């Protein structure tokens, strides 16, 4: 029929439907239609008249449309799998049944197509984590066989097809109590297995449990909820939670982090259902989040099934206790690990007493883990983030959330830390828990390291992340060797992953720190340079990371005595931290401290003090008084105060600091004993030398106890200081022993270029000179001198110390010719040094020059020098200090001829002090004994 004709049909139709049916013929009278056209019109009118037709039509269209949308992307094949049907539809996508279709072999699978994944990055992550899940091989866990992406870009997961009935159906057939518990034990085993491999199920419910013909249960969808939740669809906000509300744990309902404890809750609820309970009341999320699960025996007693009511009495007591313990609202009060829940279930099956009824004896475990966390919070959080594989994803999700939610997330992560750590020991016999509670942090870490072996080799990423986290924690607990081993292994994996650039920078930064701890400065610098090189191009987007890398390079450079370069790095880092506002505050406190440290190494003590004081203020504000990082800066401040001769102030600072350190870190801590050493040094300078000796000895005692044969460089410093005390008191034998031991330790522990060795050599040399051992003294002075010249820039005051020692030695040998040259050089040096040496060194230098002056008969000059020395020393030491007394004695001897009265008075003054200060057999006593 032609179109034109149709227009007439259409016109006729319009006319007809405008009037009642009886009037149609009249309406048609004006229109002439052919026979065909008339037939057409009739059929159309008939269709129009059947009212129901209109409804059916629209329904049909709508349904067709709806059906088309639902089945929009369902393919016929996916990879080697041929889709044979649809098993169902869930919150995250559709589940299809499929068989293998490449002629290889027969296999039935279930394929879950996950809808709505948006970004390529999220899909990549899913692919990585899929590999982790695929490694879960357990008879009671549905295997994840593989996966891929549909042509439309949606990820799918291929899972073993389990021939079994859902748990609900199995339960509908009356099952004896014992069979139910046995089944439950198998489920617990599966969950515990997965937890050991750091996979959390997150969606335990009866619908996810199938029961095979032989009664063995299989868990479905392990960890898949997490993979799906991880993605945030492109701004849609259409992503909803994938959990099933009635079975969700309270923390899940509150939107908090999901942990292994959530799985324990899920298991408890499963047990509750297995024992005849129903969860309808939990459909109200508010109620579910705040009300405890009903007692199993109660629920069973009220069950509508006679068989359940029959065993209700047997549930009272033990089984009630298990359900209660597993389903506590507070995650930290549940069974700390699925294994422990399993142990109680097995105990019930064996007729043994339960742990849950013996009181909360996991308290010890939890307490230990909690304390551990308090000390190494950051490292452990990393560790657990790695364990949950949510490090990246959680961080990104958190960026979108409010600060409060983030705080909750962090609190929950901390609980996770506790749970994970306690879980680490869950394999132990609970009767041995008391021993476990005494495990040291070191042992905890080593166990963690051993657990790494559980991560299958097919998941290099997971293993690398754990290695990295453990490495960080090892470093934080002063075990740099382990840290380096682990971090290096992790580094290799991260280096191969272009998406892990930021992680790689962090690893190199920590590696640098660890190498520094081991005093392997070259390796430290190399690692730091790598970090800086990688971080610099990202300066705009990630200024903090760049700043951190600069910090580690600055430290490495400082240890190589490249002070100006180190300072440059710190300056730059400071600018970056300041630009980062709130987030940069932490780094800023460190950089302030480091600048003080470099200034100190450059001999610019006043400047160093100012930096340290800034650091202390900043740290107090940000971290509080009782934070170990604050302690660091306060003790550095005290040390520089002492160095500048402001001993009263230094003592006051230390007196306030030491009790805090004892309280927070303990008396056996490194910080405590080092501070005792510092305090000793300061007290020594204040002339309170017996208090000083007490402090040194206390510090050394603890050091020897903790370090054994392998004393550390820090202990060497304490040995050195105690030796100087002894030297001042004239106890030369022990002074020499102390210096020698200190030097030996320093030679073993320090980098050969480190000036600590030079100082120890100088000290020992001085002691040897006093005993007349000139040959060895000479060698030591030579070595010390060479080191200083190599390390220090020209004009550095410490170079003069070497020159003074040369002079002293030449005088002791009676080599006046050489002495004259040295003295001249020394005088010139003293005049031209931009920064004066510290008071004590200064006084020592002047005293040696004075000795030379006396030796060549220039009494006047000698007197002037000695007076100057006394003046300098007077700024640093109190009047009754033996050091001052000895100088007075020197001066007395020098003026004896010219001004005997003055000489006598000086001598009397000196004697008064020295009588008391010197030890009984001090050789200096001879100087004022005879007349």
């Amino acid at each position, binding site marked *: *029929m032609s*179109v034109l004709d*149709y227009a007439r049909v*259409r016109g006729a*139709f*319009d006319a007809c*439907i405008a009037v009642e049916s009886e009037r149609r013929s009249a309406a048609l009278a004006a229109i002439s239609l052919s026979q065909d056209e008339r037939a057409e019109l009739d*059929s*159309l*009118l*008939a*269709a*129009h008249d*059947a009212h129901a*037709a*209109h409804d*059916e*039509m*629209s*329904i*049909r*269209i*709508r*349904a*067709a*449309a*709806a*059906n*088309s*949308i*639902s*089945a*929009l*992307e*369902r*393919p*016929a*094949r996916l990879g080697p799998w*041929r*889709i*044979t*049907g*649809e098993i169902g*539809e*869930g*919150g*995250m*996508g*559709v589940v299809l049944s499929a068989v293998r279709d490449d002629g290889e072999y027969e296999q039935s699978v279930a394929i879950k197509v*996950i*809808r*709505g994944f948006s970004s390529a990055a999220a899909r990549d992550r899913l692919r990585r984590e899929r590999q982790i899940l695929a490694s879960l091989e357990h008879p009671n866990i549905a295997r994840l066989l593989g996966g891929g992406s549909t042509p*439309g870009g*949606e990820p799918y997961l291929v899972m073993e097809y389990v021939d079994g009935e859902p748990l609900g159906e199995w339960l509908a057939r009356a099952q004896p109590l014992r069979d139910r518990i046995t089944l439950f034990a198998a489920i617990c085993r599966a969950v515990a297995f997965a937890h050991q491999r750091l996979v959390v199920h997150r969606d335990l419910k009866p619908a996810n449990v199938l029961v095979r013909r032989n009664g063995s249960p299989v868990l479905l969808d392990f960890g898949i909820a997490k993979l799906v939740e991880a993605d945030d*669809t492109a701004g*849609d906000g*259409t*992503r*909803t939670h994938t959990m099933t509300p009635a079975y969700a744990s309270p923390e899940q309902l509150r939107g908090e982090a999901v942990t292994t404890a959530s799985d324990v809750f899920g298991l408890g609820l499963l047990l509750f259902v297995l024992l005849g309970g129903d969860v309808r009341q939990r459909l109200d999320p508010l109620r579910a989040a705040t009300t405890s699960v009903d007692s199993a025996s109660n629920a069973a007693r009220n069950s509508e099934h006679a068989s359940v009511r029959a065993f209700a009495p047997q549930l009272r007591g033990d089984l009630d206790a298990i359900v209660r313990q597993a389903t506590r609202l507070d995650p930290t009060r549940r069974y700390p690990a699925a294994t422990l829940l399993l142990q109680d279930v097995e105990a019930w099956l064996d007729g043994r007493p339960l742990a849950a009824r013996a009181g909360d004896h996991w308290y010890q475990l939890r307490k230990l883990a909690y304390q551990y966390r308090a000390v190494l919070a950051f490292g452990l959080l990393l560790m657990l983030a790695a364990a949950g594989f949510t490090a990246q994803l959680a961080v990104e999700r958190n960026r979108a959330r409010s600060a409060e939610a983030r705080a909750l997330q962090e609190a929950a992560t901390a609980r996770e830390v506790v749970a994970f750590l306690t879980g680490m020991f869950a394999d132990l016999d609970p009767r041995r828990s008391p021993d476990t509670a005494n495990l040291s942090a070191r042992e905890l870490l080593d166990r963690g390291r051993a657990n790494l072996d559980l991560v299958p080799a097919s998941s290099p990423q997971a293993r690398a992340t754990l290695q990295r986290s453990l490495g960080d924690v090892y470093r934080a607990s002063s075990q740099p060797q382990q840290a380096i081993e682990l971090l290096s292994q992790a580094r290799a994996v991260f280096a191969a992953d272009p998406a892990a650039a930021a992680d790689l920078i962090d690893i190199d930064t920590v590696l640098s720190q660890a190498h520094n701890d081991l005093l392997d400065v070259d390796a430290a610098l190399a690692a730091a340079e790598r970090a800086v090189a990688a971080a610099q191009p990202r300066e705009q987007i990630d200024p903090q990371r760049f700043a951190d890398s600069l910090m580690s390079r600055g430290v490495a450079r400082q240890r190589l005595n490249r002070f100006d370069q180190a300072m440059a790095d710190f300056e730059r880092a400071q600018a970056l931290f300041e630009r980062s506002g709130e987030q940069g505050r932490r780094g800023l406190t460190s950089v302030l401290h480091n600048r003080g440290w470099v200034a100190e190494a450059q001999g610019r003590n006043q400047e160093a003090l100012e930096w340290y004081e800034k650091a202390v203020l900043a740290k107090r504000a940000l971290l509080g008084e009782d934070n170990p990082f604050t302690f660091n800066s306060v003790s550095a401040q005290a040390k520089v105060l002492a160095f500048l001769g402001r001993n009263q102030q230094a003592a006051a600072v230390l007196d306030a600091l030491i009790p805090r350190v004892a309280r927070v870190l303990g008396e056996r801590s490194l910080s405590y004993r080092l501070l005792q050493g510092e305090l000793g040094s300061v007290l020594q300078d204040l002339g309170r030398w017996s208090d000083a000796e007490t402090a040194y000895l206390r510090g050394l005692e603890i050091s020897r106890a903790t370090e054994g044969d392998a004393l550390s460089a820090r202990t060497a410093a304490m040995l050195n200081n105690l030796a100087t005390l002894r030297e001042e008191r004239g106890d030369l034998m022990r002074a020499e022993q102390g210096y020698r031991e200190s030097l030996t330790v320093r030679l073993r522990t320090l980098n050969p270029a480190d000036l600590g060795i030079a100082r120890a050599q100088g000290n020992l040399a001085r002691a040897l000179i006093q005993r007349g051992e000139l040959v060895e003294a000479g060698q030591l002075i030579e070595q010390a001198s060479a080191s200083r010249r190599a390390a220090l820039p020209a004009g550095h005051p410490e170079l003069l110390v070497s020159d003074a020692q040369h002079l002293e030695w030449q005088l002791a040998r009676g080599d006046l010719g050489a002495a004259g040259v040295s003295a001249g050089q020394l005088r010139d040096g003293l005049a031209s040094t931009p920064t004066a040496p510290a008071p004590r060194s200064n006084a020592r230098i002047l005293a040696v020059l004075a000795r030379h002056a006396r030796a060549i008969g220039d009494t006047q000059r000698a007197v002037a020098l000695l007076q100057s020395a006394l003046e300098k020393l007077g700024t640093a030491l109190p009047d009754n200090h033996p050091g001052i007394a000895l100088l007075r004695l020197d001066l007395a001897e020098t003026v004896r001829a010219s001004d005997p009265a003055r000489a006598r008075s000086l001598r009397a003054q000196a004697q008064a002090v020295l009588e008391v200060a010197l030890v009984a057999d001090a050789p200096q006593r001879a100087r004022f004994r005879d007349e």
Partner: protein
Amino acid sequence: MSNAPIDLGELITAWHSGKAEAEAVLSREVYQLLKRMAGARLAQGGPATLEATGLVHEAVARLLGGNSDWTSRDHFFALVAMQMRAVLVDGARRRSADKRGGGAAHVTLGGVADPVVTEDSLLELHEALLRLSERDARAARVVELTYFGGMRAHEIAPVLEVSDATIERDLAFGRSWLKRELST
């Protein structure tokens, strides 16, 4: 999808001011958007009876937001409705082809309390609509906009530039015609 992000707002403005190329590009973008939205909706769960019209409304609201006069909105609605039909039909065609080629089992989804509906019924509808448009183009258009776009008479009228009453009559005719076609 292209790599460079397309500014749909600009595109819509260009299309509204009559640029021909804009329409083709815009249509393509709308098509992709509807597919994505459908997929996302599906993952959200809930009953399988997803309304095509709901998607169209949502897409229009999202793309136009609050800032458009009513005439351009209606025209845009019509464009989106057309693309919605295209999305559904394309999907149905693809599945049809798969079935014929792969020999896979016939997969259905219930969810509607009604006669078993297969994707073939949509293709039937589509082809019937094509035939109708050969007889009465405007009536076919009205049916499309009503059923795929969920548009009302007063919304369609300005697009097709006829009166509301004409739209009603077109709809009556189109429905009757299709009913007759599809029941034989």
